[in-house]
């Protein structure tokens, strides 16, 4: 019997939960300025998340999907992307969208039940939030097909959860990305939970990254709470994509520190101990400890940052809350490039009702 194929999956980690380095950093590690920028945006992400949940709890926002626990994954990936790259997000990538140009007020507008949250020109060619699980993986491959067709040096990044790896869309996307050597990076935010179903019930495979091997493409695990590991692996994957060397799957191992959404109550299915362990490994505290130890950060800077970020978020909230609702007629617009005659009649009925009832 001959061995036809042998695969292996590596795990990249540099920064331990304690904030200590596990190994010496490579030359390509982010400099202090970059680290501080990561830290600042991770703090922004966490504060924004808390604010959005508070808005939902007070009836000022719809159901909201928390990003807590994915700050390192999202911030590092978004800041490694260039403007000409394309983001194909799922529904937990608020801070990535913001770092690529989307006003936080528009993020809130989306979660506040208004399509205009997806409309700002600042989002360029990025796709809007994708709700049906894993379908965005194929859209990312379609975007990458367009980029490859035009022979452009741009990368596509799509993000998915661990539950999404059980869907055919994900596997079909890996398959076609491999065959066509598409410039796409799949980031699995393995936060261990698909609503109430733990990672162990999704697949018996010991890693999610190894699913890439079945499609003949590169797959690897990264500590998703470690900015050094994320920085190194994402930048290499993006560079491979932009230079025509094909796709990569990065399984970023993290932990969902929140409920699935504000409509969920994780205490029904998750033990307090598991959550406590999750918090002990979380990305922001880990980086903060490291920065303190390096003498790059102190309590005074921390307080100033928290205040600045709080002000910026409050301004976004104010803009969001001041946004008037779309007129009723808007639901008929943008359905087709040109409104069909039959739809115009229905619009007129709806508008007349709006005028009667207002």
């Amino acid at each position, binding site marked *: 019997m001959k061995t036809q194929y042998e695969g292996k999956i590596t795990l990249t980690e540099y920064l331990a939960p304690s904030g200590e380095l596990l190994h010496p950093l490579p030359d390509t590690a982010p400099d202090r300025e970059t680290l501080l920028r990561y830290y600042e945006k991770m703090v922004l992400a966490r504060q924004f998340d808390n604010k959005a949940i508070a808005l939902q709890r007070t009836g000022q926002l719809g159901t909201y999907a928390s990003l807590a626990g994915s700050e390192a994954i999202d911030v590092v990936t978004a800041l490694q992307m260039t403007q000409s790259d*394309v983001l*194909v997000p799922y529904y937990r990538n608020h801070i990535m969208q913001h770092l690529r140009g989307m006003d936080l007020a528009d993020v809130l507008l989306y979660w506040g039940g208004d*399509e*205009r949250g*997806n*409309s*700002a*020109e600042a*989002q360029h*060619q990025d*796709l*809007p939030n*994708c*709700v*049906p699980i894993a*379908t965005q*993986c*194929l*859209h*990312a*491959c*379609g*975007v*990458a*097909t*367009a*980029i490859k*067709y035009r022979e452009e040096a741009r990368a596509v990044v799509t993000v998915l959860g661990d539950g999404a790896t059980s869907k*055919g*869309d994900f596997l*079909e*996307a890996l*398959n*076609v990305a491999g*065959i066509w050597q598409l410039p796409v990076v799949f980031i699995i935010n393995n936060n261990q939970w698909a609503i109430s179903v733990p990672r162990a019930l999704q697949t018996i495979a010991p890693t999610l990254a190894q699913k890439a091997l079945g499609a003949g493409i590169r797959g690897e695990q990264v500590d998703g709470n470690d900015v050094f590991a994320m920085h190194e692996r994402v930048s290499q994957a993006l560079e491979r994509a932009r230079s025509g060397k094909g796709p990569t799957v990065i399984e970023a191992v993290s932990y969902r520190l929140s409920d699935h959404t504000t409509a969920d109550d994780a205490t029904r299915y998750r033990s307090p101990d598991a959550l406590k362990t999750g918090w002990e490994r979380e990305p922001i505290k880990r980086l903060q400890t490291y920065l303190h130890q390096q003498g790059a950060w102190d309590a005074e800077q921390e307080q100033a940052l928290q205040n600045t970020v709080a002000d910026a978020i409050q301004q976004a909230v104010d803009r969001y809350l001041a946004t008037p609702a779309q007129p009723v007629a*808007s639901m008929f*617009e*943008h*359905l*087709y*490039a040109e409104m*069909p*005659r*039959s*739809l115009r009649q229905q619009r007129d009925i709806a508008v007349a009702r709006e005028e009667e009832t207002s």
Partner: protein
Amino acid sequence: MNTLATTAQLTEPLSMVDAVNLALHRAMREDADVVLLGEDIGPNGGVFRATADLRTAFGEKRVIDTPLAENMIAGLTVGMATQGLKPVAEIQFMGFIFPAMEHIICHAARMRNRTRGRLSCPLVIRAPFGGGIHAPEHHSESTEALFAHTPGLRVVIPSSPQRAYGLLLAAIRCPDPVIFLEPKRIYRSHNQQIKDDGEALPLDTCFTLREGQDVTLISWGAMIKETLAAADQLLSEGIECEVIDIATVSPLDRDTLLASVSKTGRCVIVQEAPQNCSVGSEIASMMATEALFDLRAPVARVSGYDTVMPYFRLEQHYMPQTDQIVTAVKQTMEFS
């Protein structure tokens, strides 16, 4: 076969599938953003040869044989279209389109609306459909109503080579997602010279194939053949039928249909699809709500039965026949 006329001259007589091929050639010549993808569409030219010679003419970059996954094909077209390409995907048979439904309904139909026009999905998904060619299971159904029910899609069904040519050009140039369903029973049933002038036909207007005063026959796709045959027979018996090919089954050109029925006072709808919750149901409902006082007789429907499409030994019993249309019209005429 050289059908690539560069001036607006008439081609040799072409079948509908050749007309589809001719339109694809022209669209690809005109616009470098038009890219074809599907299963077996490359060197094989598609199982019905709708994409014959296109790989030779435009290369593997623009005529792409995909892995065998319909869901993937639809998902790719969504992503490609958001970036300004105009993908024209072939689903080999409509019976295999169901894995693609999520991308068609949840994404293609919504992308423009969801982004308030920032992004759009100018894609075409072609699929041969309908019965009558003695095909295996899942190769003969008519499920256009599933798409017609979805806001944001255009659903187009040609019934002749010239209309296949003009409507497919329109579908490819259309900034909206178009489901383009090709009735395979008439793929090669008759040939027609085509004016290859690149003129698109409208996607918002029915085609009145024959004018008449007594009754309006409304149909689309392959059933136009039997509908016209019935109209011929009825004319010999002194009944003048107005025959309308709706062609774009969604969004529907209601005005043309209502104007005709208000003139004739009688309406017979002919469709191959099952009757329950069908495109014919919508037309009948429209007549009941908007043309009731013009009607001189109940609206009649000649449809496929509300059964699973039988295997081919019985398919002729499933599909409406000319004599059934004639009978329905005569029953309608009995009301004064």
